[in-house]
């Protein structure tokens, strides 16, 4: 398994950029404990994490004590090249909705796309997206700013 294959495997099973980093860390720690008898991780492991580890571990036979360090150096390089889809939303999204969003993005744009959620209450409603340095604003704040004059004149007509 190459570093790229590992990341593809993990990204197919997670939705967010931070989940991917967390899962890579789990894989690394599991191998460290195997090679160097280190303690198991103290990080919180979900059911999905356990399933992923069970799925991936048999495929990691090519990683030995000798190439372990260089393999994960290359994994880190690959991670630095990943471009997440950054989504700004005005509320904290429940996990079930996040999964729905993740499934939607993977279905529409490919299974390798990862999301990075950011919380911005000033958006009021809607969302903003950042992809490869392009910022697209679909928020209510942006709409209201665009139609500021119209909104003000409407309010003023009520005041009369």
């Amino acid at each position, binding site marked *: 398994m190459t570093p790229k294959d590992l990341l593809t495997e993990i990204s197919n099973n997670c939705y967010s950029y931070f989940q991917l980093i967390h899962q890579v860390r789990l894989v690394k720690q599991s191998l460290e404990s195997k090679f160097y008898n280190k303690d198991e991780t103290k990080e919180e492991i979900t059911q999905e994490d356990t399933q992923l580890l069970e799925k991936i571990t048999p495929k990691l036979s090519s990683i030995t004590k000798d190439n372990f360090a260089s393999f994960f150096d290359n994994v880190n390089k690959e991670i630095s090249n990943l471009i997440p889809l950054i989504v700004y939303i005005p509320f904290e999204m429940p996990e079930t909705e996040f999964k729905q969003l993740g499934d939607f993005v993977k279905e529409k744009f490919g299974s390798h796309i990862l999301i990075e959620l950011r919380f911005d209450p000033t958006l009021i409603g809607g969302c903003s997206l*950042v992809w*490869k*340095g*392009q*910022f*697209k*604003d*679909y928020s209510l704040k*942006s709409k209201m700013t*665009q139609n500021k004059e119209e909104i003000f004149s409407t309010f003023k007509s009520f005041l009369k």
Partner: protein
Amino acid sequence: MTTQEVGYVIENKNFLVYLDGLPTIKVNDMVQNEEGLRGWVYSIYPDKVEVLIIDEGKLSPGQLFRKLDHKLTVPVSEAILGRAINPLGVPIDGKGPIPQAGLKLLELEREAPGVKSRQFITNQFVTGITFIDTIMPIGRGQRELVVGDAHSGKTDFLIDIIVNQKSTNVICIYASIGKQTVTVRNIIDSLTTNKAITNTIIIAASSSDPLPQVFLAPKTAFAIAEYFQQKGRDVLVILDDVGVHARTYREIALLSGKNPGREGYPGDIFYQHSHIFERAGNFKAEYGGGSITALPMIELNLTDLVSFIPTNLMSMTDGHLLFKQTLHNIGLNPAIDIDLSVSRVGRQTQQEIQVRLSSKIRELLAHARNLETVSRFSSLLPKETKLILNQKEMVEELLSQDPLTNIPIPIQLILITLPFTTFLADQDVNFVKKNKTTIINAFINDYDLSSLVNNVLKFKTIEELIAALEKVSPKLKTICA
């Protein structure tokens, strides 16, 4: 839906920030974060964008910067005359905001106008300082480097030039680069006291300001100069001091990891200065018609004239005035070394009589210096040698001028011709020292003498001028008796 280009901070080194994203960004574009901190795009790498942060504020990795739809600009209008601003156009003189009416945003980073927009320099830039106007003339549109030792009177000389422009239509722009705030305050006060602030704009990036602002100060000075030049005005730009600007750029370049070259300066230091000075010149009417005269100043490190930056600057200007502390200490003002200074353009703007007199004075001084060497070995000197040495002393005294004085060109010419007349033939330097001001005042105020003053520039030869002065010699003797 609105679309913008954005980038996130991936690295931060003091005032340098590296951003990802921003797919179509170009050098000199502007970015701004949510807190309003503005950045100026300085370099672009395959994976990141290097930005100089020009406002003060805190930065941290992950911050969002948006690309702005305008370049780095400074707001300019007639209302900034008499004001002191920072390189971003913010007033720093405590006189309140600059009126918004008529303000025009001008880009700081502009390519210098091409050769087709320029014309031959024909008009003299009159400084009111005898040494400059007669011996080392400056043309309107010329770039003349002011270079010299510390404490040799360079800044005072530049302030004198600004003060002497108050009765002319010339706009003076003084860019104070990396000086202490108190020094900037003193310059503002000095110009205000001498009523020269009304036609002057001071651009000051003091040593406590963000380093990118110090780097931008000369660009702002030239952007403002171009605004007035395009309105047909003659502008004087003084950059004090370009050495600090070079060191500032070295600091930025070293911090950004650019390869250091000679004396640690980056490879493009020559370009950084030359493309600023190239914006000076005398322009054709269809390009505005005005002129930009540049007087960049640099202080020498331990009188080392041949170090990297001064020699760079000499090669990109039209001459230089070398100030020496030793000359300043013996009372010469301006303390300019005549042998090591040069003005390559100014001579073509002088009248015939000025050129002839200037050559004669140079010849006299050079000849006298040779004779001085010989005279050290002999106590009895021939009469001719004594005369030449006496004339040299008198000429040097007449070329030396008190600070904040303005001598009109015709009187300058009369003064330096007097040592060749019978009026001063039997006198010495002490007589000149004692009566210099009296003679100047006589030529300004006396009706009979003032008619000669009005005709001085019409003379074709020095002999004609000497003959005219011989006629008024008895009157001068009476005045100085």
